Structure formats: C-alpha cells, structure tokens
C-alpha cells in the first residue's frame, strides 16, 4: 500500500507540535507511527530517537529512517519536506512580522505563557520515552549520571550518549 499520503499527513502534523523541541512531539509520534500506522515498534522508535541525538544538524533526523522503512527513498524525502516545510514557512512569516509585533503588548504575554507549556511538553515527551528506555537500576543510573554531568559541566551531549552506548554494551551483553 502506498504510504506517502499518510507520511505527509503524520509528519506535517507532528512538525507543528515541536514547540520547545523535537521531544514535544514524541508522545503523539509514538501513537501515530507505532500504534496507528505500525511503521515501526516502540523500542525501534526509542532507538532511532536516541541514536539521532548523536547525528549533527537538526536533532530530529531520525524521521528519515521511518520514512525510508515505510516508503523507500521517496518516503524519506517526503518525510523531511513534510516535517520541515510547514514550520519553515511559519517561521519565515513570523520572522518578517516580528519587529512590527514589538509594540504589540501580547507578544510578550504569548512568549511568557508558552514557555512553561513548552517545557511541560518536553517533560511529557521525556516521560513517554523513559517508560520504554528506563527499566532497571543500570538504565536509571546512566540517565541520572548523564543528567548530572550535563547540568554541572560543559560537556558534549553527543559524546555522552556515545559513552552510554559503551556502558550499554558492557552491562547488557549476555
């Protein structure tokens, strides 16, 4: 079955939810790609998201493999266009209007009001992911140590995730 229209719909919709960061769209990405369309499994989604954090550039390029699995090369291209197109147009328009909006008192209200909601969305995405990624003392320890290191030292996040991979191999290889 041709998945292209569904890929466009799903990823254009998800792109509009990425307020605060890509993680904000994660709960609905799980519902749509895993439960509704069954393009991949929940563990696969978690793996792709996590590995994608090590790649350079925008941190949601893990959508490319989802598009490729569901619809081949065309699927991969379609997914990128659908995911970056709508928000790109929106940002372009708002960017041009931004200075004119400076005098509008609600601009500040909207920014201040959206800040706690976008942080909540990130946290909700994080909890959804943690349900599949944290399942014992080892994984919980890795997450806490990474959190503490990033909060207290200026470290490269991609490097820490790579270290996580080595620790994973050491602790989970039978």
């Amino acid at each position, binding site marked *: 079955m041709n998945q292209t229209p569904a890929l466009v719909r799903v990823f254009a919709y998800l792109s509009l939810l990425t*307020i605060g*960061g*890509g*993680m904000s769209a994660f709960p*609905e990405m799980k519902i749509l790609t895993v439960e509704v369309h069954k393009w991949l499994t929940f563990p696969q989604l*978690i793996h792709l998201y*996590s*590995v*994608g954090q090590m790649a*350079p*550039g*925008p*941190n*949601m*390029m893990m959508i*490319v*493999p989802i598009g*490729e*699995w569901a619809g081949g090369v065309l699927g991969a291209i379609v997914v*990128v266009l659908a995911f*970056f197109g709508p*928000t*790109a147009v*929106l*940002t372009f328009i708002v*960017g*041009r209007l931004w200075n004119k909006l400076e005098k509008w008192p609600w601009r500040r*209200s909207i920014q*201040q*009001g*959206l*800040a*706690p*909601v*976008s*942080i*909540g*969305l*990130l*946290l909700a995405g994080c909890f*959804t*992911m943690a349900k599949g*990624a*944290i399942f014992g003392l080892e994984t919980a320890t*890795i*997450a806490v*140590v*990474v959190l503490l290191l*990033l*909060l207290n030292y200026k470290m*490269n*996040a*991609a*490097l*820490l*995730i790579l270290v*996580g*991979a080595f620790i*994973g191999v050491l602790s*989970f290889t039978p």
Partner: protein
Amino acid sequence: MSETDTTLVLPRKADTALVQAGVSIGQIFLEFLVIGATSFGGVVPYLRGSLVIKRHWIDDKEFVEMLSISQSLPGLNASNMAILVGEKLRGAMGSVAAITGICLPGAVIMYVVGMFYRSHGDHVWVTAGLKGVAAAAVGMILSTVVGLSKKALTNKFDFVFMVLTVIAVNRLHQSVPRTLIAVGLLAILFHRPRKERKESVGP
C-alpha cells in the same frame, strides 16, 4: 540539533561590528552545510561560532533575538534559526539555501544509520548498546528541561502550568494541540499585558 542547546549561556560578546552585506546564496548554503555536518552535540554553539564570530553575518544581539523567536515557534531551533538567518541575508532564497544546507548531512547520515539498524538492529551488541544510548538520551532531555526551567519559569504559577501540561499529555492522554489550547491560553492570559500599556504609549 540537540535539545541541550538552549541551556547554553553565551559566554562573551562577539564583535558586533561589520555585519556583512552581499552574501551569496552559495556561501549561505555552504556555511550551513558545514554547520549541519559538524554540529555534534547541539547546533546553537556551532551556529553562533560560525555566523556571529567567524563570518560576522549577524551580531550577538540579533542572534539572541532570533533564538528567542525560534524557541517560541513550532519547529526545531536549528531549522528555525536557518530560516531566520537565511531570510535576513538573502530573503526567501537565503532561507531555502540555509535550511537545505543544515538538514542535508544529518539526513544522509540517518538514512545510512537506518539501513544499518534495520539489518543489524537485532545483533546482541547493538541491542545492548542501544539500551545505554536510550537511557543516556533520557538524561540529556531532562538536563534540557532543567536548564530551560531555570531560565524561563519565573514564578510558581509557571510551575503549575508546566505540571498541568505534563498531566494533560501523560495522564489524561490529551493531544498536544488540545493541551496547548487549554493550558497555553490559561498561561497566556495569566501573563496578559498589565499596565505596561501606559508606559508604551509614548513615542
């Protein structure tokens, strides 16, 4: 781009002088292509290093302003910044060049990673490593949440709005648009303009 970007503080003022005019579309594409290929662990410091410090295409004040727009709108910081900087330098074509450049390397890398994962994803070492990777990613996202909270949550009601959002999505299984409309509107109304209008009347 990593979600940890936003937790970074800008260390020092860069040269605000000499914002170059007449940057070509090709130069924009190439510069963003390099950023897209090298920005491991978070795009924002690389963007600043390249656009503000090395090229002087924008100054620090513009950079912070653009970052604040990028964070308020849907879309990733990396791609929104590319759109805004591209637009400033060369209009719509500049935006297209910048976002294409910054997306291309990561997209190609993840395409290859995806094919490798599909054929070798069930290898014992790979599954073991991925468990560590996923756990580390959870820690990374949490650090972003903490970093953003320190900067953006200014009073206790902001914490309430944040918690309400989490409950709506995780516990009540509400969609993000519904949550945004309900909690977002509440929060925006809470932060509604008050008395500032009197001050902003003057020229």
